[in-house]
């Protein structure tokens, strides 16, 4: 394969590769490592100018302070309240739309499909004013439900693209033979296609979780107060309060980044399968 497997290379080259790997990783993750170390550095170190040296002690205190003195715990709860219903809603709806677009050859099929695909790529700003207005009028401004409804609708676009292509890859004969036996369309969906969609459902769930958790734009547009604010917008607000208190900013950042990172590590295979859809075959 390409490049030539390192096993075929000479001894020194192999050794050089093994040494280069960790060095490259440390350089690549430098900002992250720096922030992680700072989050464990006592405030006194920063005051004394010890920014890079060995921390004088490991300060888990920073994390305790972040949770005690700021509403970050609350923000994280809000993020879950937005993210989990969105995952369920968007994946659920797209199972249905994906099935409709993959299995039936109705007239507007391709047009509907491309509308979903194109909708995915548009800039959020073209939606901002009307969606904010709609949310206000529905009495959902400044609530997690308002965010959920928008995210479900928007993510359905991407999810439909994914589901439709996934179902297209299934053996169609399965559906045909069920039809011949008089199985209803709903039963075909429920008992034949849906069980086979499990890997796609898993992949989309992790992806949508990450996308929605990390959303910042809509969190600032559709939410104003603390009580519904997700952690991305919350972190930005806290950053304004903790001016230059980098040990706190760092600890807060790590806390906010953790849930999607854990999700990624637990569901890695599904995550990458979802993200690289279409990267191998046209």
């Amino acid at each position, binding site marked *: 394969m*390409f490049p030539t497997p390192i096993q075929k290379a000479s001894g020194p080259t192999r050794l050089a590769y093994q040494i280069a*790997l960790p060095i490259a990783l440390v350089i690549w993750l430098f900002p992250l490592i720096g922030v992680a170390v700072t989050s464990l550095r006592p405030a006194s170190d920063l005051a004394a100018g010890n920014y890079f040296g060995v921390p004088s002690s490991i300060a888990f205190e920073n994390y305790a302070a972040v949770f005690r003195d700021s509403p970050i715990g609350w923000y994280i709860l809000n993020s879950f309240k937005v993210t989990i219903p969105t995952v369920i809603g968007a994946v659920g709806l797209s199972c*249905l739309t994906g099935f409709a677009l993959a299995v039936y050859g109705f007239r507007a099929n391709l047009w509907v499909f491309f509308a979903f695909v194109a909708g995915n790529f*548009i800039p959020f700003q073209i939606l901002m004013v*009307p969606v904010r207005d709609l949310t206000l009028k529905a009495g959902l401004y400044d609530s997690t439900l308002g965010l959920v409804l928008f995210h479900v609708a928007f993510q359905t676009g991407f999810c439909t693209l994914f589901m439709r292509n996934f179902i297209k890859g299934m053996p169609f004969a399965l559906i045909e033979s069920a039809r011949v036996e008089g199985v209803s369309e*709903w039963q075909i969906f429920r008992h034949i296609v849906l069980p086979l969609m499990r890997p796609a459902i898993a992949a989309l769930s992790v992806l949508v979780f990450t996308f929605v*958790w990390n959303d910042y734009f809509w969190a600032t547009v559709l939410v104003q107060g603390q009580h519904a604010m997700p952690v991305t917008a919350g972190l930005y607000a806290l950053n304004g309060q903790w001016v230059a208190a980098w040990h706190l900013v760092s600890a807060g950042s790590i806390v906010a980044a953790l849930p999607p990172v854990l999700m990624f590590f637990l569901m890695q295979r599904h995550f990458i399968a979802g993200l690289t859809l*279409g990267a191998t075959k046209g």
Partner: protein
Amino acid sequence: MPTNSQPAGFWKRNQMKIAPYVFLAPGALMFLIYVLIPIVQSIWISFQDWDGLGPKTWVGLANYVELLDDDTFYVALKNNLLWLGLYLLAIPMGLAAALFLNQNVWGIRLYKSLFFFPFVISQVVVGLMFTWFYAPDFGLFSQAIKWLTGSEVAILADERYVTYGIIAAGLWPQTAYCMILYLTGLNNLNAEQIEAARMDNARGWRLLRHVILPQLAPATFIAMVVTVIGALRSFDLVSIMTAGGPYGSSQVLSYFMYEQALSEYGYRMGYGAAIAVVLFLIMMVFITLFIVRMIAQERNR
């Protein structure tokens, strides 16, 4: 009773025709309400003067005329082009990282995951990390610059460098994304073709260019799509790192729109919508190209 069984009979006879619409309805309705209709509404609002609460006043093209005289608009447009051009570097950088990691040694899976890490993290956090990285006096980057050149540069406070600094922060997760696309592509190469090319003494650069890259074309296409869209969507990093400053020098259209429509400068929804329409039109050029290619692929199936 024939009349009683008629609904069931009707359903049985027509379910193939009705079923797709029933399956489609809930998702399509949501998408229509929250995505498709708002696009039309935004275009409509861009011809109005509106503070978001009171009555709208039709002003025709006045918002667009004003935009053409707005210096910030040109700064934002120029920066968007800069983003677009430099963001594309994520593709070769991602390819290089993928080639570097496409080996089968102990622990390589963990290395791949860790290299991919920046993409999983929220852009808010990425923005904060790079702000810290660039911070004068103690930021690692500015310390390195000081050590190299003897003088310190506050990247995010300097009109000359600020946009480059933010783009560099954006390239970090984007390169990771392109890398994972290429790693998947490299996993699915046609081994026979490569062996045949090696027989013909094709090595290194020539092998990559004439045999490997054509096989990676689908990955390159997806990488192009997500990178172009990502570059034009850039909002989070600008908002977190500089809020468009200093003196508006790191503005991009997406943030400029937000600032005009919803901020302390007042609620100018119509003007904001006009900026959004311009951004939308720029993106439509690319979206159309992508869709045309997808249609061609659908026909080939």
